[in-house]
């Protein structure tokens, strides 16, 4: 009996230690962001700020007037840009893919199976292949350096369609047919019967889309030239190349970039994780 208890204690301690180790980089990021300038590049390294200071956040976020000229790192605008881009691409992505996923699952139309096969096959092609020509196309259409240019590619949600389809397959046909017999239009059936049933999966999908768009780096880096339009990761990558020396400042920037995601993720993690399992187990 006692041996078993010891084992339980040891296992719990191991889990706690592993978690601490995993969380340490994030904790350290927060601690350093509150250190006074230069404190992180001392030897031996410090773990705790000698004095808690907001100066890094102030320097990073506030627009300051120096010698009659405005000066800032454009992090706050980038934060709004990221919110707008992620919000819009999530919203539009849902509008486009949820009905489509349902249609592929439950509505009969000619060519459905062939289209579905094509979509599954297309999953194999990595997005990077399309990137180079896509840039040239967008250049011709004047979409380079615009939000539309960032958002459009994220709307081609093949995975999302298949994800919704998978969930919609479990809706019983009898329910839909009963509504049809009652004379409900197809659109009404979708809005009043199907959507409520798909609500949890929609939340999951929205979370996937929002986080994916928020953290996306390569494409915004390529397509955005104007600093007004930079999203947070692009802006942070830019200042990290120039201000690599300012550890405390960079940590503040990292906190600003990761915090919104964690705030969103923690309360909704149940949806995220269930979605992750649904997606991976069913392929």
């Amino acid at each position, binding site marked *: 009996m006692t041996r078993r208890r010891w084992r339980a204690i040891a296992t719990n301690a191991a889990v706690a230690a592993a978690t601490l180790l995993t969380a340490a980089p994030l904790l350290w990021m927060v601690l350093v962001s509150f250190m006074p300038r230069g404190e992180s590049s001392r030897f031996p390294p410090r773990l705790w700020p000698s004095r808690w200071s907001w100066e890094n956040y102030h320097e990073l976020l506030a627009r300051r007037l120096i010698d009659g*000229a405005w*000066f800032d790192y454009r992090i706050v605008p980038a934060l709004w840009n990221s919110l707008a881009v992620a919000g819009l691409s999530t919203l539009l992505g849902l509008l486009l893919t949820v009905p489509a996923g349902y249609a592929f699952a439950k509505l009969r139309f000619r060519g459905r199976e062939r289209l579905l096969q094509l979509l599954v096959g297309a999953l194999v092609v990595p997005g990077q292949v399309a990137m180079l020509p896509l840039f040239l196309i967008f*250049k011709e259409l004047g979409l*380079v*350096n615009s939000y539309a240019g960032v958002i459009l590619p994220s709307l081609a949600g093949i995975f999302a369609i298949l994800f919704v389809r998978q969930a919609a397959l479990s809706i019983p046909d009898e329910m839909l047919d009963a509504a049809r017999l009652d004379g409900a239009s197809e659109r009404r059936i979708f809005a009043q019967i199907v959507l409520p049933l798909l609500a949890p999966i929609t939340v999951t999908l929205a979370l996937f889309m929002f986080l994916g768009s928020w953290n996306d780096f390569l494409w915004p880096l390529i*397509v955005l*030239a104007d600093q007004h339009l930079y999203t947070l990761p692009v802006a942070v990558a830019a200042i990290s190349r*120039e201000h690599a*020396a300012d550890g405390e400042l960079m940590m503040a920037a990292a906190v600003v970039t990761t915090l919104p995601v964690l705030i969103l993720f923690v309360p909704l993690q149940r949806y995220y994780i269930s979605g992750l399992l649904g997606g991976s187990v069913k392929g």
Partner: protein
Amino acid sequence: MSYEGDYSPMLMPAFTRATGLRVEVQSLPWTAAHEKLLTAQAGDSLPDVLMLPDGWVGEFAMIGALAPVTDATLLGGLFPGVAAVVGADGQPYAVPWSVAPQVQYYRRDLLDRAGYAAPPEDWDSWRRMGQRLKGRAPDNFAFLMLLNWWDTLFTFAGQTGAGPLRERDTRGNFRDPRFREALAFYVSLFREGLAPPALSTEVQDPVAAFAQGYFAVYPYGPTLTLDLHRRAAEIPPALWSTARMPGPHGPGRVSGIAASLCVSARSRRPAAAWALVRHLTSSASELTYQRLIGTLPANAAAWETPQLRQPALRAFAEQMRDPTREPMIVEWERIRIEVQLIAERVVRGQLGIDAALVAMDDRVDRLLAKRRALVETARLA
């Protein structure tokens, strides 16, 4: 870009007061600037006025991004040795703005203790000084030359008089014995442990490291003076000074990263753009800039003022009169980077010097294949 970009907003209020035009400034990190500007050109979103290092002007002129300088008065009164970059068609495309030749910053106290009042000016003595510095402080280094930057290697090469390209800039010329000499010297500094084989991503704060004596000599451009003054608490001005870069047998020609101002060919406000260029390249603006960030004026008149007679600037002024001329071709930026990558492999012992020179010529010939084809069919001058 870099400090030039971060601080140029401060030159704008005077312009706005005089013309009523508001100017918006964007700053790019050096290591990403080239691709960002090309993307902007492709996406038709270049700013009206842009700062380019001289090495890029030919490239951007060729792809039609820049408007030629038609007003000759903009190009008058330049410092001797400074000249406007001319495109393949013989027209000037940029107005010289600031010059940043490489010089060496050195720790006076550390050199003093090793028995030197100032760094020697020829390679052999310079290396010997390095050995003595290293001997006194084995944990530290004599020189800092970041391995992912090509400037010091090309400084050494320029001083031997080696021309990097041949046959109308269509082939590499790195097997030239003079380039070999420069590369061998460069590599020897690392091999003997006089310089750390470090990248810019590793030495996160070179000024702090310089202040702590991690290295005694740092070849760099003028903007470092600003950092050093700003952090005088860590490293008092009495502890450092500047000197010209050593050459094989005494100082010689050095390529400076000179920055020029250009106007976008598709600017919708060309008149205002040129007015801004005129404002920024005026003596007054260049002097303000020198005071703010340490870059050196391209304008001869600015050099007449007391502000530029400080002793720490003498090395720069001398060096500026003696610049190397660089090939004005599209591929030049990439050639320097790739040559430096090969040099890095030599430093790390992955490649011998002669094999490296062959690899450089080979690589550069490939990079120039398209240009060669165009030159041979007379589609390119």
